[in-house]
């Protein structure tokens, strides 16, 4: 495993590999996401209980799903970076965290907006919303710690330790919040717990889940490439890449 990984640990190779993926990933992400959203907004039938308000599900559920898995990916990257001393994994952490944070933010906000017409309040201390809020704080902590260091290599290492501590805590936090919620018998909220969906709603939901997954991938690839350039800024190969960039930009402005 390790031997196989080794050639990919070279920043230049990874940069160009990701560069080949990036356009395809971006295009398929945009197409799939567009299809899922349009299908969900325009063609899927209205819900017999919630009417058209349920259409928020097409962003809420995918972002909520990926917000959690991205945090786990973050911790795995940190773990790999620590155990195998793979600096590329440390940089991956810096690429994943902003995407995860944004997804968590979206799921939180859409959840609250959905709650207003359904429960009559913008914020309910429901178990899921609460643990999502805590996940948001965990992301903020990782990113804040990363940016607090002037030396990014140390920042990535420190943020990685925090991410690993956080990922151990996540199940405990989830369990505690659920327990707390039943103890205080908040509103029994069923908006997120739906009976099996009709196929006509389920298919566009699956499409937009796929779309958001691809979007997360494309965004992470974009940020990862930036991160590689930033860390290797004084290496000859980066000089070459950036010089080429400038040349194409200049020719573009000349044409215009």
């Amino acid at each position, binding site marked *: 495993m390790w031997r196989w990984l080794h050639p990919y640990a070279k920043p230049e190779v990874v940069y160009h590999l990701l560069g080949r993926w990036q356009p395809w990933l971006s295009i398929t992400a945009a197409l799939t996401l567009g299809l899922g959203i349009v299908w969900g907004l325009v063609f*899927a*039938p209205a819900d017999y209980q919630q009417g*058209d308000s349920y259409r928020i599900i097409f*962003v809420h559920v995918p972002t909520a799903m990926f917000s959690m898995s991205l945090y786990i990916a973050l911790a795995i990257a940190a773990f790999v970076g620590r155990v195998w001393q793979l600096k590329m994994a440390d940089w991956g952490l810096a690429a994943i965290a*902003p995407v995860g944070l944004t997804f968590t933010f979206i799921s939180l906000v859409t959840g609250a907006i959905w709650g207003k017409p359904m429960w009559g309040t913008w914020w309910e201390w429901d178990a899921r919303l609460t643990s999502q809020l805590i996940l948001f704080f965990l992301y903020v902590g990782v990113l804040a710690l990363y940016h607090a260091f002037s030396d990014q290599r140390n920042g990535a290492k420190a943020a990685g330790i925090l991410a690993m501590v956080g990922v151990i805590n996540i199940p405990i936090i989830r369990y505690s919040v659920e327990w707390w919620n039943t103890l205080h018998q908040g509103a029994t909220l069923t908006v997120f717990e739906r009976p099996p969906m009709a196929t006509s709603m389920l298919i566009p939901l699956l499409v937009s889940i796929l779309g958001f997954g691809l*979007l997360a991938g494309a965004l992470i690839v974009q940020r990862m490439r*930036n991160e590689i350039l930033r860390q290797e*800024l004084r290496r000859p190969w980066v000089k070459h890449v950036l010089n080429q960039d400038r040349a194409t930009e200049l020719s573009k402005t000349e044409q215009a």
Partner: protein
Amino acid sequence: MVFDNLQAFIAMGGYGFYVWLAFGISFAAIAVLVISGLTARRKLQREFVKEQRRQERLAQRKREVS
């Protein structure tokens, strides 16, 4: 197409405000993410130019000294 006309589509059966707010904020958040990625690259470019100038200065100083 489950909506009869554009107005019905925008109204979303009375939930228009919530649905469009949710989608709008989501779109804006993702747009911020995409744009920040693009500007980060632009910024790297500028930093790189600065670094090159710095190295040119260093090289020049060396030539003058020797």
